[in-house]
């Protein structure tokens, strides 16, 4: 069919203008400093202008009739589809392109006729009216088609390995510490690796085949200045698709109040869902942006705006949830989830900045950065709350049997999990690092091992243990028996050292710290021995060679005194406990060496004087009984044996 443009006459003045513009365009096009967008615009302008000049002035009368005829053809085409409700592009793509051609023609007519209608006849005005009317019909139809196409050819967004790992257990902060054991904390901090899918693989959100259709609809609608309708329809449909997707991800909408009042188990679960959702949505949005780019390719400036509109509302929901979490009271058990959240936002920050790099997306970017800051603050506050909680722990009953205090267990296990977040914590704690760090003294074997021990996180760990130690010291005062105090402290320090030597923590505590603390618990062991045995052993000390002057009674008293002391110790200290078998053994051996030796010397030298009756036990017996010490089950030696003659 002929082109309307060839029929509409062009008045002379306009021809001059067009020629001048074309010159201008050519001149600009020759310049070397143009970027791609500008070049595109210029080439479009150029083609448009050349189209306009291919006009042969025809006489008005016949021209008009031809115009009318062509109009009728186009009108029929468009009206023909009105009764047909099926999807145009699905049923017959060729027909669809014919339809579009018809629309384009009407469009040109609408553009061209007003020039006539200035002085136009009534008939021309009517024609214009009809043309506009049919154009509106067509636009309406195209809008519907657009929606249908988008909805029908929507593709389900799926990334490769999106497994959802739910970690159930957590280190529960329980005031009574009754239930805390050496838990498998590895479970509690499984990091979700599904988000590491690179953004290069960008799945399609809409079947690629229909994208040219979308583009053609877009071009036509924009040309008829129905761009607003197009954008609106497009945005609405895509927004709905995004919402739907979030529903599939089972992300629920909570008000801030709900979040603050939720109990920890639920909250834990929701946070993990959130983290996964955030990772996935970012990738989804990359696809969405590509779709927008493809559809709005030649239509330039609206692209970022549409994309931002589509994604803003849902993203704000996710961000609100994050904000609500960051607002909550800092509790130690929240730390790991907070760190996870921080990590996911920090990881994705770059993508967000890229996706929303234009001006229209500034508000989203700002919100993300703010969320990151708030999460950081919250995480830091939680870390410090942890320290405070340790210091404030105020139970007044001493741990029975001098065993390891649950607080020690809890703290060390909690700390053991932190190195997993080492990089994040170092960033968070960077500015907080006071002068508490030791100066970098001699390096171990010239290696840089100690540099890790001085990173901010390591310093923080050591400060935590420092608080713990102070607490333990004060707790030990709860024991009345001085020896038990030492046993208690020895146990706990030993436990700390053992945990610090574990592979996760070793590098952070550093050899120096470990050595210092080994010395400490050994000191306590020595103090214990002194406290327990010094008086008893002093009884066994044999005087100088003038033994005859020492009367037998005194010796017998001494022997008896010793035996009584030993039995006392046995009675009370078998009830004490040293959980670590090696430590127990060491202490027993050391005790045995001193005590048994002294006893053997004493009895050996004085057996004649004292008489068998008083030497209740042989050295072997003593050795055996010492092995009973610190087993944790109290025993008693008196009356358990029949007296020897």
């Amino acid at each position, binding site marked *: 069919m002929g082109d309307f443009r060839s029929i509409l006459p062009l008045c002379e003045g306009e021809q001059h203008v067009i020629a001048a513009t074309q010159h201008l365009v050519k001149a600009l096009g020759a310049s070397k400093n143009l970027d791609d967008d500008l070049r595109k615009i210029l080439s479009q302008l150029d083609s448009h202008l050349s189209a306009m000049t291919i006009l042969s002035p025809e006489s008005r009368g016949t021209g008009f009739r031809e115009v009318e005829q062509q109009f009728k053809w186009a009108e029929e085409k468009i009206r023909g589809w*009105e009764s047909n409700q099926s999807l145009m592009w699905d049923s017959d793509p060729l027909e669809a392109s014919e339809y579009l051609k018809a629309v384009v023609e009407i469009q040109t007519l609408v553009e061209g006729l*007003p020039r006539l*209608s200035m002085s136009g006849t009534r008939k021309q*005005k*009517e024609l*214009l*009216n*009809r*043309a*506009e*009317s*049919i*154009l*509106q*019909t067509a*636009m*309406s*139809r195209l809008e*519907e088609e657009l*929606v249908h196409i988008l909805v029908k050819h929507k593709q389900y967004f799926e990334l490769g390995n999106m497994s959802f790992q739910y970690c159930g257990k957590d280190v529960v902060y329980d005031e009574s510490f009754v239930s805390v054991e050496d838990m498998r904390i590895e479970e509690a901090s499984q990091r979700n690796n599904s988000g590491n899918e690179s953004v290069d693989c960008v799945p399609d959100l809409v079947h690629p085949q229909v994208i040219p259709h979308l583009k053609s609809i877009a071009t036509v609608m924009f040309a008829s*200045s*129905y761009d*607003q*309708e197009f954008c*609106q*329809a497009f945005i*609405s*449909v895509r*927004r*709905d698709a*995004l*919402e739907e997707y979030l529903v599939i991800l089972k992300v*629920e*909408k*909570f*008000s*801030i*109040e*709900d979040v*603050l009042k939720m109990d920890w188990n639920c909250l834990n679960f929701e946070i993990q869902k959130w983290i996964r959702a955030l990772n996935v949505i970012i990738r989804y949005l990359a696809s969405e942006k590509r779709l927008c780019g493809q559809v709005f390719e030649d239509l330039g400036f609206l692209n970022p705006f549409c994309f931002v509109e589509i994604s*803003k*509302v849902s993203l*704000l*929901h996710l961000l*609100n949830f994050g904000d609500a979490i960051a*607002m909550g009271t800092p509790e130690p058990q929240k730390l790991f989830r907070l760190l996870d959240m921080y990590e996911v936002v920090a990881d994705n920050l770059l993508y967000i900045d890229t996706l929303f790099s234009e001006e229209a997306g500034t*508000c989203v970017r700002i*919100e993300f950065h703010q969320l990151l800051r708030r999460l950081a603050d919250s995480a830091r506050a939680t870390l410090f709350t942890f320290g405070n909680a340790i210091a404030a722990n105020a139970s007044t009953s001493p741990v029975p049997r001098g065993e390891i205090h649950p607080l020690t267990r809890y703290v060390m296990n909690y700390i053991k999990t932190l190195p997993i977040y080492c990089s994040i914590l170092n960033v968070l704690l960077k500015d907080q690092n006071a002068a508490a760090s030791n100066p970098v003294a001699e390096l171990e074997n010239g290696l840089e091992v100690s540099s890790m021990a001085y990173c901010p996180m390591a310093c923080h760990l050591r400060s935590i243990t420092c608080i713990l130690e102070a607490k333990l010291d004060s707790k030990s005062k709860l024991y009345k028996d001085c020896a038990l105090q030492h046993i208690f402290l020895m146990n706990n320090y030993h436990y700390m050292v053992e945990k610090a030597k574990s592979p996760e923590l070793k590098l952070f505590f550093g050899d120096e710290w470990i050595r210092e603390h080994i010395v400490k618990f050994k000191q306590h062991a020595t103090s214990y021995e002194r406290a327990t045995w010094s008086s008893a052993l002093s009884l066994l000390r044999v005087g100088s060679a003038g033994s005859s002057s020492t009367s037998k009674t005194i010796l017998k008293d001494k022997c008896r005194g010793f035996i009584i002391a030993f039995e006392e110790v046995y009675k009370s200290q078998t009830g004490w406990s040293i959980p670590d078998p090696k430590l127990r053994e060491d202490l027993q051996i050391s005790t045995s060496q001193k005590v048994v030796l002294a006893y053997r010397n004493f009895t050996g030298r004085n057996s004649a004087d004292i008489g068998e009756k008083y030497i209740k036990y042989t050295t072997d017996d003593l050795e055996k009984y010492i092995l009973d010490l610190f087993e944790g089950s109290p025993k008693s030696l008196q009356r358990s044996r029949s007296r020897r003659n």
Partner: protein
Amino acid sequence: MDGNHEQELEDLELFQKYVADRFSDLLSSSSDEAADSLLSVSWLRKLVDVFLCCEAEFKAVLIMGRDPSQVSKPPLDRLVPEFLDRVVKALDVCNAVSHSVESVRHYQKLAEIAVSAFEQRSIGDGQVRRAKKALNSLMLTLEEKEGSNHKSAERAWSFGRRGATNKDRAAPGQFRSLSWNMAKGWSAAKQIQAMSANLVAPRGAKSSGLASPVYIMSTVMLFVMWALVAAIPCQERNGLSTHFPVPRQLGWAQSMVALQEKIAEEWKKKKEKTRLAGLLEETQRLERLGQSLIEFADSFHFPAEAERLEEMASQVAELADTCKKMEEGLVPLQQQIREV
């Protein structure tokens, strides 16, 4: 200690005066015709601004030489958690409101389509239909907002139609995603009511220390939230009570009370009619103009008579003006709310 007490009183007075001043500004600006009228977008922006300033002053009062151990003693140990609770509710309301501002922007865009259709040099059938379609969607969404939740069912179109076509119907599901963005069962009215519970002016001895400023701040917050909810349609506004306890005798509250009365009046007026699309002035105008333009479109017949054209042109201009104001105001309003 006495000196401290005097200092406190002084602070308190300053704070009261500050609040009173800001609110009387608001009141005067609302009655002044040239400036912003009550519950327009720019007035709301001022309102939020006032709130932010009061909050800053409040923080200053809190920080200046206060004894932190006071917080754990009564009456503060009850008041402070209540206050924090109110703050959380207020934040939720803000979130809901800022979502709703999104939908108001949607109205604006629809109105803009209508405007651009009518602003063509020569109005033809096509343009009129286009405008009508946009306006119909606008009316529909305005109505839908206050209606029931989650209704995206097909509606029987009782608006006038040209010819036998049902082309002018916008897809009903289009606006699904803009509605009801908060959690299920969340209700703006209930939140406001909950906020106003236990809001009692401290008397006598209790009014020393922080109790008074806390009370003032709470009242201010409550008022601001209430006004926002009244103006902008959010989720579940039914039952928004028009009165809440603001003691009239307190000097600083005078302007607030006056404003409250005005708003309550508007609310009652609206309740008479069936549609409550929020008291936001611009939306009201959109509604009004939209209706009359639809009527015009219904009776449109090509070619149009000159007088009708003129009449309509003025309405269209008004509509365009409103749209422009909305355009300028809404996005900053949103940002302000998020600042809160």
